[in-house]
């Protein structure tokens, strides 16, 4: 891939995992600053609390409040940038979505909500 515009092409892009499943959006991007070396693109961040920081203090407070009420830790998923396979309309990463914390809520709702209701689970298509 030739030059990648990090903000225009990567930030907020849709993330797809190894099986082309949607696993959230690129909420954050981390650069590692090194003396005498150009900054290295270290990792992608996925998580509501990360996106909240970009919106503003009030949003961070809301997200932290919700997490405290639900008694959960804000889930931040860190994906090393070298796991990125392709950057186009979406960003594809060599990661299994189900194992990352980005899909924690999805998994919880899958077990405690969707699968508990008839017709909820089963083969992919209806």
């Amino acid at each position, binding site marked *: *891939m*030739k*030059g*990648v*515009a*990090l*903000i*225009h*092409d990567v*930030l907020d892009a849709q993330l797809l995992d190894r099986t082309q499943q949607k696993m959230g959006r690129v*909420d*954050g*991007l*981390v*650069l*590692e*600053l*090194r*003396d005498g*070396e*150009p*900054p*290295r*693109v*270290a990792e992608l*961040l996925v998580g509501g609390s*990360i996106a909240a*920081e*970009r919106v503003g203090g009030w949003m961070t407070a809301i997200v932290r409040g919700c997490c405290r009420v639900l008694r959960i830790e804000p889930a931040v998923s860190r994906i090393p*940038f*070298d796991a*990125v*396979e*392709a*950057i*186009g*309309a*979406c960003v594809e990463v060599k990661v299994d979505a189900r194992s990352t914390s980005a899909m924690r809520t999805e998994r919880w709702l899958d077990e405690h909500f969707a699968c508990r209701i008839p017709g909820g689970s089963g083969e992919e298509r209806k």
Partner: protein
Amino acid sequence: MTRTVRVDLLSGRVVRDTTGRRIGRIHDLIAEVAHPGSGEYVVRQIHLSTGGLVERLGGTHFARILAERFGVESNRLVVDWRDIDLSDPERPTLRRPLERQAAVSRARSSRAGAGRRGSG
């Protein structure tokens, strides 16, 4: 001592030079492969938007796109990574006063259509 900085918090930040003069706002950071064959990406160029109107519109992402779209070309300043200190995302500063470089035409990164499958 490795320090990290969040690109998403840099977006749209005002960049000043060592004398404190406003140069422009961070529009984008261009990452390239460190050296052919390696999977590592490094940021070699930082694009600043320095257009007058875009500045006055507060340089929000929205205003920038609107300005670009309707012919109010905010001229773009390309800064090399060596010339900018990003350690403090609140106040990115240029390491030395910079004479105004020729505005490079907008870097066309194509995400249109069915999307480009990079070789990765």
